Structure formats: C-alpha cells, structure tokens
C-alpha cells in the first residue's frame, strides 16, 4: 500500500496552488460580492490545462482521472477560491459525456471541456422531486427529429456563465413500477423557450443559483447523450465524481480555515504566551485537523476507486462527501472561534466561506441521504424510504 502521491500529482497540486494563490481569496470574494465571474482565474487554470485534467487525451485533455481533478478542486479551495463550476462542468458533465456519449458527441463536446472553453451546467434537481430522481417531472417528448422539453429545474449552479446545460429528463415511464425512465440532453443556455431566474442565496460564490423553466424547448435528437431511457445509470456515473470533487473542495476549505487559524494562534498573544498554547484552543484545532485528514483519506480512496472502476466507489464517495463537509464546517467554525471577534471580520476572510462550506453539507447530496445509503448498503439495514 502506498499513500504517496506521484510526483506529477504533487506538481499539479503545487501549480494549481500557485495559480489560485496569485489570485487569492480577496479576488474571489470581491468578484462574488459584485456579481462578477472569476473568469480570469478560470482562464488561467484552464489555459494551463488543469480544468481538463480528467478529459481523455484523444480529445485534448489530460487523460488523468477524478483523482487529479479532485486535487485541482482541493487546491483552489485551500487558497480560498472554491469554484463550484469545476464540480459541475468537468466532474459531472464531462465524465458522463466521455463515458456514455457516442463518437460524434464526444468529438463535439470533449475538446471544449479539455481546454475549459466549454462550460456546462448540470440540471437534475426539481421543486417537487428533491432527492428523488424517480419522480422527476421534466419531460422530453420525441417529435420527429427533435425532442421537446417541458418542466422546471431549480438550484442549478452557474447557468449564466455556461454555454450549455446537461438536463436530466423523463422520456418514458416503466409501466410496472411507475418509475420514470430518464434521458440526458445537452441544451444550449440560449435555447428558445428556456427561461431562468436567479434564486437569491446566502453563499459568497461567483456561481449563482437558478430556477429554469423549459417551455417546449426544442432540442435536436443528436443532443440526447447515449441511449434513450438509460439516463439514471448515466447520472449515477457522474454523481460519484461530483461527490468526490465536492468532498475535495470541502477538504480545501478545511485546510484554508486551519491554515489561518493556526497562523493566528501561533502569533496572537493576549497574556504571556501565544493563544495556541492554550489547550482550549489547541485541542479543538487538533481534532479538526484529524477529522480533516480522515476526510482527505476517504476522498482519495473514493477518487482512486472511481478511476479504477472499483465497486467501492459509490460507498467511498458518499462517505467522503459526508466526512469532508462535516470536517470543513468544524475547521471553519473553530477557525472563527480561534480568531475571537476577528473571526467574523470581513478582513479575515473566514465568515464569508461559511455559506459555501455549509452548502456542502446539503449538496450535492444531503448528509441524511448519505446516512440512508450507508445504513442500507453498508450495514444491510432496511430501506428507509
């Protein structure tokens, strides 16, 4: 067993840390607060080939896996620049298209993912379906050479900066079970009949959240990814990378918080010694560090399992997402506590990370759904829903 990263993985880490570090958390927050996009950071990252690390090399990508993409996500977050779009576009959409798209679809979209010039949002969640993908009500109906999409999606990230959206729809219903059969479509964001409205949220991030209304949106049949009615299996293949890169982002936020907290606790003196000498502060930080490193280990295992097609990928990805989100929140909370009153000051760049860290407890899959999964699949307990 070898827990060392390859020299190349370490260098990816260092290079991404440098790129993100040059922009920094202040840049990230300034852009997010003013409603602007972190385009310069994305371009620098993508231009150096890091957004496309996981895209197959025959399409111009790095030919690596989720392991390396997770490293990119973690390092960005560790510099205070967590980019949700990286989870959505390369981790989910590119993974699904690379795995299930036909030759024409792969040739059409993967080169854009490789360079990072193509950004694709991912739309699955619906107001009335929530975590229950079987109850999706957005439909796609075949009409000659096109499909017509009708329905509503919400909490869709980054639509305004994406060229297209990978939309999960119901194309038929299994008569016996009553469950929807799903199909995935690539829909251009400027398609006629597609409307969007912003959902105001308390998250400091450049990616906005949207409700999408599909009113008879016409999509060419060649935009249906892979096999019709096979969407659920395809979605699940993309959700593990989503969980793993989400976990990696959470781990990065945890590192960002602990770096700041430990630096502050080493320097800040109120009585005769640095406040870090007080166990009341040192022990919670040490515990947060342990939880963080445990989460990082599980994240790495999840990525490894996905990349080599190991059956433990789903369980590991779920556990990693759970552990990393909890660890990130604990690290951030303790970092804020360590900073005393400064913990909530804008200048210290901690409290503005709360929204995104807290989001990762809820999304991409909620803490409770992961506990359901582990109860049922890991422990053999009766299904709860």
């Amino acid at each position, binding site marked *: 067993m070898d827990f060392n990263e390859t*020299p*190349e993985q370490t*260098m*990816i880490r260092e*290079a991404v840390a440098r*790129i993100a570090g040059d922009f920094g958390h202040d840049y990230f927050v300034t852009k997010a607060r003013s409603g602007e996009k972190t385009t310069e950071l994305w371009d*620098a990252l993508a*231009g*150096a*080939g890091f957004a496309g690390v996981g895209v197959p090399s025959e399409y111009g990508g790095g030919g690596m896996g989720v392991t390396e993409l997770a490293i990119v996500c973690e390092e960005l977050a560790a510099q205070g620049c967590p980019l949700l779009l990286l989870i959505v576009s390369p981790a989910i959409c590119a993974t699904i298209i690379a795995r299930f798209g036909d030759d024409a679809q792969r040739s059409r979209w993967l080169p854009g993912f490789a360079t990072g010039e193509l950004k694709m949002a991912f739309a699955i969640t619906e107001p009335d379906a929530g975590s229950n993908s079987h109850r999706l009500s957005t439909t796609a109906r075949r009409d000659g050479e096109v499909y017509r999409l009708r329905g509503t999606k919400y909490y869709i990230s980054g639509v305004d900066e994406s060229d297209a959206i990978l939309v999960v729809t119901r194309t038929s219903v299994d008569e016996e079970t009553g469950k929807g059969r799903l199909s995935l479509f690539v829909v251009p964001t400027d398609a006629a009949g597609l409307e969007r409205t912003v959902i105001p949220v308390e998250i400091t991030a450049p990616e906005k959240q949207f409700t999408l209304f599909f009113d008879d949106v016409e999509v060419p049949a060649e935009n249906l990814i892979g096999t019709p009615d096979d969407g659920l299996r395809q979605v699940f293949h993309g959700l593990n990378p989503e969980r793993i890169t989400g976990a990696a982002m959470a781990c990065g936020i945890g590192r960002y918080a602990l770096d700041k907290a430990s630096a502050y606790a080493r320097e800040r003196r109120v009585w005769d010694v640095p406040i870090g000498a007080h166990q009341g502060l040192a022990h919670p930080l040490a515990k947060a560090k342990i939880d963080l490193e445990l989460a990082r280990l599980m994240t790495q295992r999840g990525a490894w399992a996905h990349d080599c097609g190991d059956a433990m990928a789903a369980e590991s990805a779920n556990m990693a997402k759970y552990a990393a989100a909890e660890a990130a929140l604990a690290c951030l909370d303790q970092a804020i506590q360590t900073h005393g009153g400064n913990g909530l000051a804008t200048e210290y760049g901690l409290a503005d990370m709360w929204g995104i860290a807290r989001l990762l407890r809820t999304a991409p899959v909620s803490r409770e759904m992961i506990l359901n999964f582990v109860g049922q699949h890991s422990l053999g307990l009766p299904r709860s829903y």
Partner: protein
Amino acid sequence: MNVVVCVKQIPDPAIPGQLDPQSNFLKREGKLILDDSDAYGVEMALQLVDAAGGGEVTLVSMAPNNEASGLRTALAMGAAKAVLISDPALAGADALTTAKVLAGAIDRVKPDLVLTATEATDGYTGTLPEQIAGILDLPSITFAKKIEIVGATVKVDRQTEAGYDEVEAPMPAVVSVTAGVVEPRYPSFKGIMAAKSKPVDELTAADLGVTPGAGQQIVSVIAAEARQAGEIIEDDGEGYLKIIEFLEQQKVL
C-alpha cells in the same frame, strides 16, 4: 541559443529550517524544492531561447541523495534536460567546491550563456556566479534585471543602488539574475507530464574530475539578537510631542 541555468534545490523555506547539532549545517535530508530565486533565471532562460527561435535550456544542480523533485519543477516550466551532481563526498561542500562542480558540469554542456540567481535562499553566500565565471574564465555580469542577446553579445541592464547600468559582454558569459525581474510561468499540466520523461543525467564529483577539498567548518552558531520591544506611548492628546522628540533624537528632524 543554449542556456545553462544553475539551480539549487533547498528545504522548503515555509518550514522552519533545522541545523544538524554536530556539524551545524542546515539539514537537507527531506524533500527539497526549487529555490524560488532560481525560478527567475529559468524563466529568463526560457524567454531568451524563445526569442532566439531555437536551442534549449539545461539545468545544472548539486544536491544530496539524487534529489530531483525541484528539478522536475523547472523541467515542467520548460527546461529540456538537467544535470544533477549528487555525491556523498560533496556533503558540506563549501562555495568554491560547489562552484568547481557546477563549472565542470557546465563545461560539458558548452552553453552560449550561463544564468544563476544572485544568491540561494538557504545559504545566502552569493559568491557562486563569480566563482563559476572565474573557474571557466568567462565574463561575469551580476544583478541582471533585463537581458538581451545581440549576435554573440549579451546586453544586460544591471541593477545598481541608484538605478541600472547598461553593460555587455561577449558570450559565453555568466549572468546572475535578480529575483523578481520576470514573472516565472506556472508549470502547465502538459509541462508537468512532459517533465516526467525529460533526461536528468546524474554525475559524481569524480565524473567531473573534482576532488572535494577540506570543505568548511561551522565552529559556532549564535541566535540573532531578538528585537527589543518598542516603547508604547498612550496618546493623551500630547502624543505628537513624543513623536517629535523621538524623531529629533534620531536626528531625522
């Protein structure tokens, strides 16, 4: 246009360094990284080769335990190959021995130009560029902030306390590059993957015909004197008088 860049791999400056209690030398056992101050020379060399429209950048480095991870960083930036001199006999080598070793390696490459940093971030000796030039009998220019190649001449803007001098020398020459004068590029993903298969030639002192001398001894290490705490004056409305008094004492006013 072939350029050699001398680079040093050093312990990560972000981690507090430790001295070996017996020898008082800096411990260099763990992972070493490319000295930040060398990244400027690497960047400068890559730009010069690009501008010349051909040639390549070769790295020359001396490090313990065949450590090459710092070299991989510079190879990922775009250097073509590296020469690494690693030899237990060179442990604790002084600057002159190091210069002889590097000069020997440079001489085998026969470059048009040799670039170095002005000094390493872990040792701060700052004598190596001139020693290498002396050994190889090459012209030496220090503290370059800008380098231009015109024919067989290297033209340098050489930083001074007052501004800069425009100087030039016939090539080959040894030029030390001031930190911060160019923006070192990020290693790209392709660069990182390419670095994996770039050649790193490993040599010993004997390969270069260098016999390590007596080296250097560090007889004593004394902690730098801690800075005295400043005087704190509560401003009761007359604080400015104290400031004026202080500035007068310092003969600033």
